[in-house]
């Protein structure tokens, strides 16, 4: 368990750092592509200068995003070796496709974007800038396909012979509704980060009364991108809530701190959890206080204002009616079925071994008997496979993720999201009134809003990943059965190395960026080379 927790910490650390850089890559990618399009259309050198400034910032950020990304890919092997075999047949494909389709596109066209200003035509350069953005988005798509599959495994079948899950339907994996929605939600959040970053930096120029024309140009583009992004985040967030309630009811219950399920459940708008609550079934009120929007949770989760939303206690103890009309099983029941599945897998393997030995020694009667036994085990295994992962768990509490962390992360993220809708609306209004450059209070607000968009993005991932514990693959494989057999000392060492290295690089990145931003966009005269 020790190794598992350090491996989780290491994955969280590297993924968290990676997600500091990726959203800016995607978000700025869009903004600079729009700017360059305007330049090519109008021929106005000021737009070219603006494009090049943001490309410089993009480049600094891109390098470190790449650096933190490579570790993530290989970590599935180094730290989650069991996982790699057990589902690699499905999980590996999106990663490979990401490399072939997306990474090469990014890497190739980024070199044209940076070094090709004088070596290719204007239109070709513009196309390259767009292809960098498209490549980055495609890469996000395929990695989120992989992530979505872990949360909602689809298109696969367990093969007891090879002891792994095998892909049987590529389209079910590639176009899973969870993947699709996750992609949109995540991509819009990246646009949001890029937009709030560009708006914040432009506002700083306005505060300093430097590069005013450049700042206003950037503000126009990026606040539009930002408004679209956050409105779409609310829309796709609704889609996420619906899918979570369908596929991962425990995550939904943790997000809302809902212990006792009910019909017509409300959505907590603001609330504080009760630290005195120690056990899921101790009858202590889970909230110190809460403000609820009536019926909204049922509506969001089940598209029905009176639908029953199961709480944590219901999911552990079972007994409520599922949407398909059947009665939900208790944890004990699922655990028993999971253990049966695991045991019959062992029996199946033993029977097949017996069969092979019998064939090799020429005893065909014994071989036939072993084959029949294996077939029987396989049938039992398939009947119980849906509960396979529960067999590794010890007690009902193991099913429950960290509720306070999930709850607060979720609510804070939502609050920040709605704040940004208002924020971009106000910025656009001031731009429309042409009073943005004098509204210094708003410029300060914009500058200090930059970190908020990053926080919201990180919180979103906390909800998604902490909320799904204990599962690496929903219902099939809990984290403790997914890790590699390396001793904790090794993982602790690499964890510390990563923490020091990434922090050092982050500090370097931030100071480089600040220098570049202070320098500002190049003057037009030196642009004409």
């Amino acid at each position, binding site marked *: 368990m020790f190794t598992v927790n350090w491996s989780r910490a290491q994955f969280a650390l590297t993924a968290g750092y990676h997600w500091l850089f990726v959203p800016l890559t995607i978000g700025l990618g869009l903004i600079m592509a729009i700017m360059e399009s305007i330049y090519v259309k109008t021929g106005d050198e000021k737009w070219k200068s603006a494009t090049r400034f943001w490309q410089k910032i993009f480049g600094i950020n891109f390098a470190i995003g790449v650096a933190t990304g490579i570790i993530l890919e290989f970590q599935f092997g180094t730290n989650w070796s069991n996982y790699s075999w057990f589902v690699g047949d499905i999980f590996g494909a999106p990663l490979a496709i990401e490399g072939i*389709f997306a990474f090469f*596109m990014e890497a190739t066209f980024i070199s044209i974007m940076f070094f090709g200003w004088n070596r290719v035509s204007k239109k070709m350069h513009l196309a390259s800038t767009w292809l960098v953005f498209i490549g980055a988005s495609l890469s996000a798509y395929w990695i989120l396909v992989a992530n979505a599959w872990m949360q909602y495994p689809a298109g696969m079948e367990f093969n007891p012979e090879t002891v792994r899950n095998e892909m049987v339907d590529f389209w079910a994996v590639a176009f899973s509704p969870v993947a699709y929605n996750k992609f949109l939600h995540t991509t819009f959040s990246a646009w949001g980060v890029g937009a709030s970053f560009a708006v914040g930096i432009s506002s700083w120029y306005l505060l300093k009364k430097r590069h005013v024309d450049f700042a206003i140009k950037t503000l126009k583009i990026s606040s539009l991108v930002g408004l679209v992004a956050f409105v779409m985040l609310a829309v796709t967030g609704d889609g996420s809530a619906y899918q979570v309630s369908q596929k991962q009811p425990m995550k939904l219950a943790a997000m809302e701190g809902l212990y006792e399920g009910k019909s017509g459940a409300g959505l907590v708008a603001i609330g504080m959890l009760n630290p005195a609550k120690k056990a899921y079934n101790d009858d202590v009120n889970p909230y110190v206080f809460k403000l609820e929007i009536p019926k909204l949770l049922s509506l969001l989760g089940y598209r029905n204002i009176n639908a029953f939303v199961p709480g944590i206690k219901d999911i552990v103890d079972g007994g409520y009616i599922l949407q398909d009309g059947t009665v939900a099983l208790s944890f004990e029941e699922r655990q028993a079925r999971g253990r049966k599945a695991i045991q019959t897998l062992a029996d199946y393997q033993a029977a097949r071994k017996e069969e092979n030995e019998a064939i090799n020694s020429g005893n065909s009667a014994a071989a036939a008997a072993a084959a029949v036994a294996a077939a029987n085990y396989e049938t039992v295994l398939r009947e119980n496979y849906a509960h396979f992962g529960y067999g590794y768990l010890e007690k009902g509490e193991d099913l429950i993720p960290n509720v306070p962390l999930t709850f607060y992360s979720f609510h804070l993220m939502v609050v920040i999201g709605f704040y940004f809708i208002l924020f971009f609306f106000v910025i656009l209004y001031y731009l429309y009134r042409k009073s943005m450059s004098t509204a210094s209070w708003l410029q300060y607000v914009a500058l200090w809003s930059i970190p908020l968009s990053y926080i919201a993005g990180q919180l979103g991932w906390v909800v998604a990943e902490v909320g799904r514990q204990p599962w690496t693959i929903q219902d099939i494989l809990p984290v403790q059965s997914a890790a590699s057999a390396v001793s904790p000392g090794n993982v602790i060492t690499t964890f510390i190395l990563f923490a020091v290295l990434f922090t050092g690089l982050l500090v370097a990145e931030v100071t480089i960026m600040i220098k570049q931003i202070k320098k500002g966009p190049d003057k037009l005269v030196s642009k004409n080379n």
Partner: protein
Amino acid sequence: MSLLGGLLVFLMFVQGGQSMLNSLSKKEDEKKLLVNALGRKWEYTFTTLVTFGGAFFASFPLFYSTSFGGAYWAWMILLFSFVVQAVSYEFQSKPGNIFGAGAYRMLLFLNGVIGTFLLGVVVATFFTGSEFTVGKANIAVLGGSGPVISQWQNPLHGLELLANVRNLSLGLAVLFLSRTLASLFFVNRLDHKDLEKRSRRFTLYNGVPFVLFFLVFLIWTLLAEGYALNPVTKVVYLEKMKYLSNFIDMPIVMVLFIMGVVSVLYGIFNTVFNLKFKKGIWFAGAGTVVTVTMLFLVAGYNNTAYYPSSIDLQSSLTLQNSSSSEFTLSVMAIVSLFVPVVVAYIFYAWRALERKKLSLEDLKTDGNSY
């Protein structure tokens, strides 16, 4: 997969170049030119490595879980060196980078040496074997040793691979090969007389050790015992001169392998002795791709265990027991049909950016430099 591996080793010329930034250049502006010539190519190597990883995962998940999770430190150190590489180009000449240009160039140097050397060491284990066991039924074990399928039996987790002389010789061969390729690349790409002259000398200095270490590895491997697979019983056993007989059983592979080697040698020798010849990189590069590809084929085809376990022969990974399902492999095959499209646009981009050679003048006018 083998072809991707071949491409990767060729593209390691970037790492080779990084390992001689200091020794090849005498003045700061020369150094800057070298960094920039390589800096326009590093992403290809990096992306190929990432794709190589992804494609290996998708095609041979058991290799992914066994080797990465087992030879933990060998891979982690390799990856660390690539993490620092990715930022070093972008950060080293920018103001405010805290650690100074020298530190980032040091990191590039380390990546150049460690990245190539360790990759060679790990590839050598395809022939020399590693200490691991694989038990797919382990996953059904509750409690006790736990359900882990692939278990590395050496507590050094990959560092022990450095104790094998044959592994070391391939590691050094790859290191010197990448430096040789980098020298050839500079001869071809740079518009700078002194650097070109020095690069030709470096081709010789690095080409000779490369050939020596490679021959040590090659001859030793051809004569050594190899990990053979009985195609009927699926039993793995040791066979004398297995890899030599693989070459003999697969004459096309042998012919291509020899042609690859000759092409590499031609590229090297012609560059050293013919001062007008600048296309050495293309001969040596193509030769490298072909040679490495054939080497991988010899490691895995013709009933051979491609990732052998030296302590438990029956745990060895073969193409059959470690690959993905037929369905997934056919998905991957369809995906590979797009590879020519990718190659086409890479070719286009390379041409567009390299129509003329890189000189110090270009660093000022191309709008972006490291």
